[in-house]
């Protein structure tokens, strides 16, 4: 059996020469729920963007059994559902229907399959019947939900979320946590929200200055205030 995510010795520098990832190695088993924490600028978003080949650096990535290369981008992108931090980046279509249908259409599904996928994806985020709404007029929490629906519609094996609770009010945040808890997919979630991490994700990878500092159970990390403080995090 293969790992869902298998990253080996990954390096990456932005074009301005700034090293963002240095020798990152970790594995995520199918069904595992993993948090990615670290201070601002640690490289979390940069790492996530590697998981479906939006960014590529030296190193080896094996996603759901496919070694990342130009030839495997198609199946890898279909297997990894990427939810971006700012839903305005993710919802680029005029209406909710077109946004949620985008992935399935490009996966080459038939019209009836696409419509079925849209229906189930919207239902699973509690946005049934909102197909014709205009993305701009949605609230922040609704935008997040639709953004998640837009990747769920692709029925991915792995869900990758970048700061899903950022910018949500307490109720929106609570709804989102409940929604994520109900999803069966393998998850890698970058977040500054340690409370959500504690509630939802049993394993945590701590990243700082592009390096993996620690990788283990969330409870153990949260019980180590010195480690947390040394990397710009606050104990609960």
């Amino acid at each position: 059996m293969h790992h869902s995510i298998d990253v080996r010795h990954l390096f990456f520098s932005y074009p301005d020469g700034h090293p963002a990832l240095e020798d990152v190695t970790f594995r995520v088993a199918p069904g595992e729920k993993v948090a990615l924490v670290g201070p601002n600028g640690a490289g979390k978003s940069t790492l996530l963007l590697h998981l479906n080949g939006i960014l590529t650096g030296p190193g080896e990535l094996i996603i759901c059994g496919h070694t990342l290369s130009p030839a495997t981008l198609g199946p890898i992108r279909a297997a990894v559902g990427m939810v971006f931090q700012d839903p305005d980046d993710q919802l680029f279509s005029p209406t909710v229907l077109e946004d949620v249908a985008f992935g399935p259409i490009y996966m080459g599904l038939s019209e009836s399959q696409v419509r079925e996928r849209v229906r189930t994806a919207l239902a699973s985020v509690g946005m049934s019947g909102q197909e014709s709404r205009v993305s701009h007029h949605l609230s922040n929490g609704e935008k997040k939900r639709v953004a998640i629906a837009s990747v769920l519609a692709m029925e991915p094996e792995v869900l990758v979320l970048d700061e899903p609770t950022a910018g949500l009010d307490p109720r929106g945040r609570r709804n989102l946590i409940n929604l994520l808890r109900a999803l069966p997919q393998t998850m890698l979630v970058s977040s500054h929200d340690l409370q959500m991490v504690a509630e939802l994700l049993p394993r945590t990878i701590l990243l700082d200055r592009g390096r993996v500092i620690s990788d283990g159970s969330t409870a153990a990390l949260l019980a180590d205030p010195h480690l947390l403080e040394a990397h710009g995090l606050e104990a609960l």
Partner: protein
Amino acid sequence: MISVHVHYLDPHRSLDSPVHALDARVKFILTVAFILTVSLTPYAAWPVFILLLAAVLSVEILSRLGLGYVQRRASLALPFVLAALPLAFSVEGTNLFTMRLGAWTQTASLEGLERFLSVGFKSWLSIQAAIVLTSSTSFPDLLRAMRAVRLPRLLVAMFGLMWRYLFVLADEALRLMRARAARSGRPGPRADSRPMPSFAWRARVAGGMAGSLFLRAFNRSDRIYGAMLSRCYDGEVRSLPLSSLSPSGWLTLAGGFSLLILLLSLGVLFWG
């Protein structure tokens, strides 16, 4: 996050009227046909112009938008009509009056004046039709209508993205402006203080804002492209097929076309 949005950019007024309920494709095609008819109708075919005006006014009334609303919006186009004013003086014909502007003498002719008034009237008619279309049709429906008439897909996709992110960008500009206002408290009442920040200062700030908006838009386009790639985008624009037009839609389309062709032939026969 700031939740004050810019809504006034969207001309769409969602109301319950037969015009709003009409298929966007029918509305789009008939509006284009109407504007084409208006521009092909010969100059000074006043009876035809009046009939065309009656047609567009009845649609306005049917749409429940209110004549006042449409006319207020239409008046925005008025200054552009003045661009046609030189026509009144440049067309040869029966002399009306002569104007002296310093060393210049300009003679207005009856034909020229008629031509100018026709152009003005035509613009007024066309703009009203466009206002009714955009106010009674949501933009996503308009985009679908453009797709239905086989406008290039890439172009329609670009319109869609522009419309989607116009609001986001406007919100960003609003935030920047608020931040600027918060930092530009007026100086105290000193002897040498000016009542307003200097023009150069404001120009510098506006320039900085434009630059920062450009950078933000540029970065955002990068992220949007990443989001599209993540969902298997391959560079070709594809979308769900459109539903077929209902019989009543076809009927309206045929009716509208017959009327417009009738009016146009009238104009061409008697004034062409």
